[in-house]
């Protein structure tokens, strides 16, 4: 907090918007807090301020930067295997300086191809879109938007990041060991993952993967219980659950999903560790390897799949729901309209959360499950289309006849809706057991989940970064670079994944290192080249964002206190809030977060902390009653 004293322009009254929005701050309160905090850590060392910080905003930035590091790495890995898929006959000799022994006689080592795919999936799903997305924005926005000084436990919050960091270090180090990183796919199905002698990647790389994930789960639990507690306990006066921004509802339900599903993955990982290293047979039975019979008896590899997907399916909603929440917020703000169907939006989030726990076996239609059981899971899966449809309808209805401002964040939010529809429609196809059995091992599935969960979650992440950057760093990101980044990414994503649907329907199999041995697939050579070129260009386009991000931190245009004229509480805090968020009293909340373009109002937005008594001209009759 000592930094707040140094910069007098932090007083919110200086930046008050249009006379409403920010209550004047009693200076004495400010002084009290300052004194108190100085007393605790005199002359805060940079190590405690930037590295081992317990401030939720600092932790959010740590998650974001680490997530960006992982995203670049995950994207690089995908470019490598797209090179292999696009030019299976081409020489990769030029990559030898980077990949060393994984390039043999100018070809990518097939074992390493499996490792690339596995690590790409693991990194993107867990390290970028779980930790990087909800770790960043749950941390950053929950206290600011519910009106709290910090998380319920700042210490546990800091631990959450450092467990994530430890897990990251272990996972990263597994890329450099002699036998290579884990190679059994991000779903680490046994027996491939359970027998260290199976393939090189089943050895030390797999062990490191499991240890890393164990720490990752601890990190998620520490973070998740904190988010939920903060939302339940730390809301400011007047902030009832029905006045929460949709972002907070999304983060809240995401955290609940994490608390309930990650322990199950932990159970599965623990049993797998016992199978690998302690001679148990939970997932192993009747196996011959290299001509020798193993002694393991009585295990079931399908049991692992049940345990894994009981996490794995909620996990995809853990990835997408924070993006949904942020997109709702960005769309309403930039369409200058209340979000359409606020309560329906909350209801659909709750519906999706509940359903996410009872559909896991739709990932396992090809395991030979009882067709009756399959039809039950099919039925439950298809019901998810209902809340998803509600959400899409409400987003479109929010845009309808809005006074739209095409900021970079808004473009990405609209792009999110587009990708979610495109990817969601194929979900209805794959949710049908009969169709899924046909498509399961083709690129159709790859195209589906990359659109609906991969790309759209990334779009939500970008929308969030562009929108809340001013709050994070006190400066604006460059809009023009944002537009270029958006169009490259948006067009790129469609050019990559649309053709994949086509080759998938034609039967082109996924997970194959090379398809040149099959005449039937040689007709897709050009298509594969096309996908690879589009993927690499779209990936390179992300460096525009990286440049824009870091350049704007230091050189961006200075932000005003509420650059988007938004209604939520974080914009009532100083431009760069200190630890504690509001220098004076925490603002109280009087109204819902979507009072945009209210008829009769002076401005086209009324922040949540403005009482009805100050907005006589726009009050509805029942609001007028509350004002008196």
């Amino acid at each position, binding site marked *: *907090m000592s930094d707040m004293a140094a910069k007098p322009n932090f007083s919110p009254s200086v930046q008050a918007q249009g006379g409403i929005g920010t209550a004047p701050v009693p200076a004495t309160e400010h002084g009290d*807090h300052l004194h*108190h*905090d100085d007393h*605790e850590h005199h002359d805060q060392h940079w190590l405690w301020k930037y590295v081992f910080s317990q401030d939720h905003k600092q932790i959010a930035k740590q998650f974001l930067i680490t997530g960006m590091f992982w995203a670049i790495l995950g994207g690089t890995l995908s470019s490598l295997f797209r090179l292999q898929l696009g030019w299976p006959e081409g020489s990769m000799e030029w990559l030898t300086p980077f990949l060393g022994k994984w390039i043999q006689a100018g070809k990518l080592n097939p074992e390493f191809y499996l490792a690339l795919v596995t690590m790409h999936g693991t990194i993107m799903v867990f390290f970028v879109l779980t930790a990087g997305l909800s770790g960043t924005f749950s941390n950053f926005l929950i206290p600011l938007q519910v009106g*709290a*000084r*910090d*998380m*319920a*436990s*700042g210490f*546990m919050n800091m631990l959450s990041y450092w467990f994530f960091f430890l897990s990251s270090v272990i996972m990263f180090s597994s890329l450099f060991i002699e036998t290579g990183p884990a190679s059994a796919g991000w779903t680490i199905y046994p027996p491939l993952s359970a027998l260290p002698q199976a393939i090189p990647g089943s050895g030390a790389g797999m062990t490191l993967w499991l240890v890393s994930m164990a720490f990752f789960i601890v990190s998620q*639990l520490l973070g*998740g*219980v*904190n988010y*939920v*507690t*903060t939302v*339940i*306990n*730390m*809301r*400011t*006066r007047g*902030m009832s659950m029905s006045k929460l921004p949709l972002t907070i509802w999304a983060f809240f339900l995401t955290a609940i999903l994490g*608390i*309930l*599903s*990650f*322990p*199950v993955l*932990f*159970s*599965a990982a*623990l*049993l797998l560790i*016992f199978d690998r290293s*302690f*001679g*148990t*047979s*939970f997932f192993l*039975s009747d196996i011959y390897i290299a001509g020798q019979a193993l*002694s393991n*008896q*009585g*295990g*079931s590899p399908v*049991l692992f799949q*049940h*345990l894994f997907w*009981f996490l794995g399916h909620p996990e995809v909603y853990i990835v997408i729901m924070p993006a949904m929440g942020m997109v709702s917020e960005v769309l309403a703000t930039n369409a200058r309209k209340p979000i359409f169907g606020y309560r329906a939006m909350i209801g659909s989030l709750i519906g999706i959360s509940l359903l996410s726990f009872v559909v896991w076996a739709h990932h396992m239609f090809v395991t030979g499950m009882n067709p009756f059981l399959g039809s039950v899971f099919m039925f439950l899966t298809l019901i998810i289309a209902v809340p998803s449809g509600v959400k899409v309808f409400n987003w479109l209805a929010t845009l309808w006849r809005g006074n739209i401002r095409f900021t970079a964040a808004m473009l990405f939010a609209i792009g999110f809706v587009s990708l979610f529809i495109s990817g969601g429609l194929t979900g209805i196809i794959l949710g049908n057991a009969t169709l899924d059995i046909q498509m399961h091992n083709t690129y159709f599935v790859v195209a589906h989940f990359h659109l609906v969960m991969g790309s759209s979650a990334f779009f939500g992440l970008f929308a969030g970064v562009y929108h809340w950057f001013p709050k994070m760093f006190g400066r604006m990101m460059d809009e023009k670079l944002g537009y270029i980044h958006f169009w490259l990414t948006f067009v790129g994503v469609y050019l990559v994944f649309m053709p994949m649907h086509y080759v998938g329907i034609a039967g082109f199999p996924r997970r194959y290192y090379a398809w040149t041995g099959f005449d039937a697939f040689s007709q897709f050579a050009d298509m594969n080249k096309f996908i690879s070129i589009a993927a690499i260009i779209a990936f390179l386009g992300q460096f525009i964002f990286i440049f824009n991000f870091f350049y704007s931190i230091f050189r961006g245009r200075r932000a005003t206190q509420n650059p988007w004229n938004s209604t939520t509480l974080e914009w009532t805090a100083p431009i760069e809030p200190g*630890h*504690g968020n509001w220098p004076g009293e*925490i603002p109280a909340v009087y109204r819902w977060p979507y009072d945009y373009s209210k008829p009769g109002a002076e401005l086209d937005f009324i922040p949540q902390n403005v009482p009805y008594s100050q907005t006589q001209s726009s009050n509805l009759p029942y609001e007028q009653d509350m004002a008196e």
Partner: protein
Amino acid sequence: MNPSETLSEKEVGLGWHPKRVLLVLLIFSIVMMFAAFTSGYIVRRDEGNWREFDLPASLLLNSIIIALSSASMQWAYFSARKDEIGRVKTGLGITLALGLAFLVGQYFSFGDLVAGNTYFGGADANPSGSFVYVLMGVHAFHLVTGLIFLAVVLKRVLNYQVHSRAMLSIGNATLYWHFLGGLWLYLYLFLLLNH
């Protein structure tokens, strides 16, 4: 900013202290973990190739011990509410001792399992037996965290930081300890019915 400072500013939520909410959420995550183990157990058993095993009689003794420790914990809690600090110390001490006795008992039960040809791993193992070790082992791990929690609370009691108007730490410890005891009784009953 010290988070506890913010608490005095408003009273919303479930009327629980944030630390109580954190604990309840952690308990939910532990419940999910054991739900995964026990449902995995049932699914696995129904697929066949499942070896029956004998449950050691010593587990009944351990269950009685942990049930008694819950009772002594509750007594300590009630005593704290009545500001009878001496009894709180005695109650916590008895609970700690019974908790340790339970762990030792579980260790001897492992021995009984091995004597009954039920192994954790190796060529003679079957997932049925391995599951028993995992259930008992993971529960024991959580019980150790519970003992550490009790020791911390005992230290607070010795420093006169626990009394009728400072019940949070002992309240949370009591809740967690009852949960661990209840979890064991559930696991014992589960194994009795399904071994």
